[in-house]
């Protein structure tokens, strides 16, 4: 495992950096709650052109890549009756040995409330693992890659056990809202709980490489051919 010795000066800077990163993630939760999507992209995400090109935002069915594509999907104006809470807990932050990037994994027992077209409204639970790659730009930590792997979606007050065991990502309201990502890939299939281990825990590391990215460049399918739900069911 990667391990480096640090001077006191280096170590306290690293401690400070990790606290700044956690604050960034927690602030994002407030931006979401206030429906400040455009502000989130402008203020919390990468600004340098090279990083903007490779920025990505993923959910179970793929990633939007590039800030222009992320913005085209994410920057929506919601009306009255919309509210979303994605509070981040269970923070696991690994700062690179060189201090230039960091990776983080969090869990959120999230919910979103939206108005239906007929004046009624509904609330959805959507617990999710949320993974980030962070990069320092001009002394400030920014979100570079983000993956929100939703475990299940259930209407508040409804009996989840009444759902089909197989999630249908073509009719799932969270994935419908996610639209048509730039890179389409089933990266987290809730059918098998956390068997696919994506996004996985960050490991200590010295310096950035695309192989460890939470963007599409770092994704590897789970081992074994039989990945998809219902494979092997036609043997009879």
């Amino acid at each position: 495992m990667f391990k480096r010795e640090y001077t006191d000066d280096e170590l306290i800077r690293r401690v400070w950096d990790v606290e700044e990163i956690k604050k960034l993630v927690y602030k994002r939760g407030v931006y979401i709650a206030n429906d400040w999507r455009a502000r989130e992209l402008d203020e919390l995400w990468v600004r340098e052109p090279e990083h903007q090109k490779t920025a990505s935002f993923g959910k179970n069915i793929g990633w939007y890549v590039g800030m222009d594509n992320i913005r085209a999907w994410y920057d929506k104006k919601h009306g009255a009756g919309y509210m979303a809470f994605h509070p981040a807990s269970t923070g696991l932050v690994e700062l690179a040995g060189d201090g230039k990037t960091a990776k983080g994994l969090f869990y959120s027992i999230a919910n979103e409330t939206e108005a239906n077209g007929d004046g009624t409204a509904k609330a959805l639970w959507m617990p999710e693992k949320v993974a980030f790659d962070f990069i320092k730009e001009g002394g400030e930590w920014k979100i570079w890659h983000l993956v929100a792997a939703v475990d299940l979606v259930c209407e508040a007050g409804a009996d989840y056990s009444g759902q089909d065991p197989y999630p249908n990502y073509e009719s799932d309201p969270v994935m419908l809202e996610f639209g048509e990502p730039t890179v389409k890939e089933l990266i987290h299939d809730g059918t098998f709980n956390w068997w696919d281990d994506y996004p996985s825990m960050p490991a200590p590391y010295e310096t950035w490489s695309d192989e460890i990215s939470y963007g599409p460049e770092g994704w590897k399918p789970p081992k074994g051919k039989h990945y998809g739900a219902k494979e092997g069911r036609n043997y009879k």
Partner: protein
Amino acid sequence: MSELSLHQRIVNAAASQEVENVKARHTYLHGRADATTEWDEIWCMDKNASWAHAFGRMRGGDQVWYGSVTQYDKMCFENWLNIFETYPEVGGKDPRPLMEASVHTLVTDVIEVARDGKSARGSFITPGVIHSRLTDDGKPYCNVLWERYGSDFVLVDGEWKYLHEHVCPDILTRMDCFDWAHGEYERLCDPNPVEGPPPTLGDPPPVTDPGPMHMPYSVLAKPRNTVPWPEPYETLDNDNTYTSLVD
């Protein structure tokens, strides 16, 4: 208490973050039911290792491994055997995460690093979700489980490791379906006495210190502060620990 040097304060601040990461690694490993990696990599499995729950306390690396790895794996493999005929696509997949994702999120971290820098203590509240889709009755489920943790950690060869865990379950019910407080009231008022829900999954493992080590929510009782937050302390000893130490 001794006055800490600036150097030791910096080291302890970094230690606090490392302990937070160890605790989070527990959550993510347990979410995959990967007990082997959890107890192999993030625990100090010596004679002082302990893991306690409402049912009692396992002590020593061997007993903790048997209860937390062997017995847990058994449940996972039994679950796989119960579902593979209905869901043949589970073939070739690690049976452990297929049982359920038991996700004990961490909030309200209170962490104290000993002034000697050799141990750390933490208390946490964990609002958790436990869910699975491919089950033997064909129905997915999601439970909510709220617990408290009292955790002790030690520095071993420069790495922070778990030494003691005390899990205190308070609320367990199905997500958004039941009123757990009124359900408990109805259970107690039932003219035909019924057992309360089990404090944990499966049969309790063998323990050294028998329970109950914590009582969950009851309409008849006040909450138990079983694992109070740690106070600043000098060194891990029997006044500052969640499990009494063995010489």
